[in-house]
């Protein structure tokens, strides 16, 4: 066996990269150790999707140079459209490829001790706080990609809301990918301390079509006792990007984590969304929509794992697949021993719009406790011809009728997104993709 490293960057490079970023020693250490471990760790194994030929490990550049935006007016139109410019009290972080490019913090947040910043600044200025939570909900040694993520983190955001602080206005992060050579190892860490609440919405947006890179995203959403996190996301990364996105929640006692995810990437994507209901009385709700088109293959695994008693978990996924795309929907409700009086419910619906499209919905319930309730529903089907007939019988042309049915099908999730601009964008993206 050779000792030659398999990765594009070795420990030495990572160490100097970390130093250049003025990162604390613990983070440098964590990067190096994670890189070391990566080789022996297995790749993630998304059920029913083979990823052995996908490139998640070879890439040219860890950082690309990008300019910052000095004001909102300078943002590209595609980004501006996502921002509610009327709402001056909103907080906004814009990252351009790997570069923290713009930050606006509301007065409300500043006065209440909220931290909202890019991941590099967080490492420098809030080192202890970051260390306490970073790679705790998702462990570095879970699989090769989480290890490589920890080793190569090159962007992301840190949001920390202290105890008893309720943030009313949505906090927004936009990750703009506009350099075809950029690779994203993005880490988003959202912490809501006890009795706090926040709404966070992120957009991953590509404005360059000819990309050929990889994306490795890890999100950790940590809700303390009685805290509430509403987490919205719309991913619209370009076709050339291969994406691994792992969004995970950790809910303490009586905490609530609600996800509203619009997964609209055009490239091959593995999405893993897990909510660990750790505390008694905790609550997890995941709503997801996705559209698959072209030749892309996507795998969406959504799990809610109940550890706490009286915990409740709800999964609702609706997806549309067209062209020759393949979309696998795995939904897992898991109730651990001791999580009595818990309830795990899930529903997955896939609508196929063409003969060659492939969709698969796999509901899984894993229950290790007697005194619980659980349920699942799953379906894979085509647009109901009788619905089309009904709409057309009122004069609506077939294409418009199909559009209405598809929008209606995805509406339960789209309507959940907390920022109007983002909701509108998602509707437009869906429109474009299903046409």
């Amino acid at each position, binding site marked *: 066996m050779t000792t030659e490293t398999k990765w594009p960057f070795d420990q030495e490079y990572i160490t100097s990269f970390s130093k250049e970023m003025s990162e604390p020693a613990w983070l440098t250490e964590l990067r190096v150790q994670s890189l070391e471990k990566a080789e022996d760790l297995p790749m993630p194994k998304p059920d029913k999707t083979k990823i052995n030929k996908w490139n998640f490990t070879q890439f040219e550049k860890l950082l690309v140079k990008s300019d910052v935006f000095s004001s909102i007016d300078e943002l590209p139109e595609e980004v501006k459209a996502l921002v509610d410019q009327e709402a001056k009290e909103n907080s906004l972080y814009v990252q351009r490829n790997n570069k923290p490019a713009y930050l606006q913090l509301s007065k409300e947040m500043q006065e209440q001790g909220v931290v909202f910043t890019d991941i590099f600044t967080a490492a420098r200025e809030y080192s202890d706080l970051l260390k306490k939570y970073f790679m705790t909900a998702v462990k570095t040694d879970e699989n090769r990609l989480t290890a490589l993520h920890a080793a190569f983190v090159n962007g992301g955001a840190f949001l920390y809301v202290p105890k008893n602080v309720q943030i009313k206005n949505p906090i927004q992060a936009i990750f703009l990918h506009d350099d075809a050579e950029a690779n994203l190892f993005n880490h988003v860490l959202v912490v809501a301390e006890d009795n706090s609440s926040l709404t966070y919405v992120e957009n991953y947006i590509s404005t360059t079509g000819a990309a050929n890179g990889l994306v490795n995203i890890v999100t950790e959403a940590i809700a303390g006792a009685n805290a509430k996190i509403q987490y919205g996301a719309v991913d619209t990364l370009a076709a050339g990007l291969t994406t691994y996105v792992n969004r995970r929640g950790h809910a303490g006692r009586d905490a609530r984590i609600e996800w509203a995810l619009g997964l609209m990437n055009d490239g091959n994507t593995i999405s893993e969304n897990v909510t660990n209901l750790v505390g008694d009385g905790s609550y997890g709700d995941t709503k997801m929509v996705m559209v698959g088109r072209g030749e892309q293959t996507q795998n969406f695994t959504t799990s809610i794992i109940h550890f706490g008693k009286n915990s409740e978990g709800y999964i609702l996924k609706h997806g549309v697949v067209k062209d020759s795309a393949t979309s696998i929907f795995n939904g897992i409700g898991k109730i651990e021993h001791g999580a009595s009086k818990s309830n795990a419910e899930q529903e997955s619906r896939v609508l196929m719009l063409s003969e060659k499209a492939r969709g698969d919905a796999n509901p899984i319930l894993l229950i290790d406790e007697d005194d619980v309730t659980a349920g699942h529903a799953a379906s894979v089907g085509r647009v*109901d*011809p*009788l*619905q089309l*007939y*009904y*709409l*057309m*019988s*009122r*004069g*609506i*042309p*077939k294409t*418009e*009728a199909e559009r*209405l*049915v598809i*929008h*209606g*099908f*995805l*509406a*339960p999730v789209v309507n959940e997104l907390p920022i109007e601009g983002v909701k509108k964008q998602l509707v437009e993206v869906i429109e474009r993709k299903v046409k």
Partner: protein
Amino acid sequence: MAGSVLSIKDLHVEIEGKEILKGVNLEVKGGEIHAIMGPNGTGKSTLSSSIMGHPKYEVTSGSVSLDGENVLDMAVDERARAGLFLAMQYPSEISGVTNADFLRSALNSRLGEGNEISLMKFIRKMDKQMEFLEMDLDMAQRYLNEGFSGGEKKRNEILQLMMLEPKIAILDEIDSGLDIDALKVVSKGINEMRGEDFGCLIITHYQRLLDYITPDHVHVMMQGRIVKSGGPELAQRLEAEGYDWIKKELGIEDETVGQEA
């Protein structure tokens, strides 16, 4: 211009290879209200669905025309835009699409590009018709027919009729499952539409609806054909005496045809 003419000639229709309509002839003109009556399973609903273009029904011979235009050559949406409307017995439920969005889309499809109704004008029109039909205004923002009661669905069909103002409307058992109050409201809606430019074909089992809407012509359907036609008095006689006298008169033993879909 006088009202439109829907003309059905020797219409034969199959469903899954089984002939249900065996030569229907009928002409409905603007200003006229026709009622087709008959027991279950005689082809009444098949007739209405075939005129509208339901995907399960296959017309094997005969013709349907609207003002001389061949209806059978048109797609379902073209038939609607040409001026046909079918109030369905079982309206589809469409999740995620509000009643208002649906209706505006339907109305704009008829008006054509460049002639779309303004949002304010649309809302005023819809509110007005909903009030007329004693509907809860919230129903505009509810998903199309989803979770509607039987009566609400039927009122909603009439609301669409009043919003879209077709030339010829077919009402397929609009009275089934309605209580007397709902029946009165639905009848009020149809009577409101009555006029030179509006022709209507009412399909029903019961005389009841015809107490509120007086038809100009009444037809009886059996074995996939119209076997008897008359004026309003025919409906009254059917109500009083049932269908047996017609069967006897025509020597029909089993009035049904295939299976009623």
